């Protein structure tokens, strides 16, 4: 597995799902359906948007070199 620039989407969603899983494991009853699903959607949206912006900026930074 080769290293690469940080993948914002993988990092953000990975942390998000890890936190969700730990919350369900460590503190039973701490999360509810009405909270976890909207938070997941918000997380997907925010991290997806961040990943799109970061990717575009990286491409723009690479274009003058090419």
């Amino acid at each position, binding site marked *: *597995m*080769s*290293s*690469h620039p*940080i*993948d*914002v*989407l*993988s*990092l953000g*969603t*990975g*942390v*998000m*799902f*890890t*936190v*969700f*899983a*730990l919350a*369900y*494991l460590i503190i*039973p*009853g701490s*999360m*509810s*359906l*009405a*909270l*976890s*699903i*909207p*938070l*997941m*959607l*918000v*997380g*997907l*949206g*925010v*991290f*997806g*948007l961040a*990943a*799109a*912006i970061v*990717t*575009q900026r990286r*491409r723009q930074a690479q274009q003058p070199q*090419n």
Partner: protein
Amino acid sequence: MFGGVCGGLGRYWNVDPVVLRVVFGVSLLLGGFGLFAYLAMWWIVPDDSAPDTAKVNPSWLMVGLGAIAAVIAGLIGLGLLFSDGGSGILLGGLIAGLVVWIVLSQRTTGQTAAQVPPEPGYAYGGTTGYPPAAAPPPPPAPPRDRSYLGLIGLCAAIAATGFAMLVSGDPVTVLAAGLLALGATLVVGAFRGRARWLLVFAVPLLMLLAAVGQVQRLDINAGDVTWTPTSAENSYSLTAGALDVDFSQWQGQPGLSDSVSIDAGLAEVRIAAPRNWDLVLVTDFGAGELQIDDKTDVRPSPNGTNRTLVPASSGRADGTLRMNVSLRAGAVIVQTGAPAAGTAPAVIETPEPATTKDTKPASPKKEKAA
């Protein structure tokens, strides 16, 4: 073929257009999200036959569509977070669209750079007199290293799920263990290898985990139940079913008033009223009806609280019993125990003042009779 969007995107992404057509069709059924995406891309994506097909930068197109999907997902998520509920159909369509975008956007990485057309005639040094030479084929994109991280993470999630099954039979623990493995793999994939496609498994797994956790949170009390209230146990909660309220053990103090409370979901509440007590029914219905002695059909005011006085069937009241019944849907049936139909007690309906509406189980504290 309608606008050729699926064909064009399939050629661009090197994906069978049939797959895209199926995805659009499914998303069309799931709330119509795909229709807007299709129309937007029909308008944005350049036509193959047009001479200026390179006006729209493909990377910008992808980023723009992704950003739109991401913003919509975030807004819908915020809307669900701050509202009582949401459209499951819209939610399903949105998630499907988002997952498709994530998966497909991963395939475009490394392809856009190879699609910049070379300048015509470059191979001949710009000489004139010859027709422009055919553009040389673009150099092939460097092959991407095959990453096994996602596969490793998926196998780890399966193994973690199985291990959790052995250690704990709790379904929440089992699902959370799998989600933990997927999340950790995604974090690793942010730095080494690629594992974005695990989102396809992580998203529905979290939804399943949330649903199972929610079911466990519900303290479901359902069935056909007989409740014998006493002064010490004066409130009862029922999710669904039939509830027979038996006052045979009721030992209220004569001359004083007392209260009992019932909070029911979808239920039929059958009340055998105490003979020597005036019964004040305070009913709060979502949808349902109040029947007294199978003959009196009292329709509660919609979305309001009714206060109904049922005098003691014996004609002599030892006291007044206040009974608060909150019912989402169903019926409240009261049997007064009157000896004959002709002597059924009168029913007096008065609106319950909003300020005295009881929302909590009654306190066992005694209060003086009016």
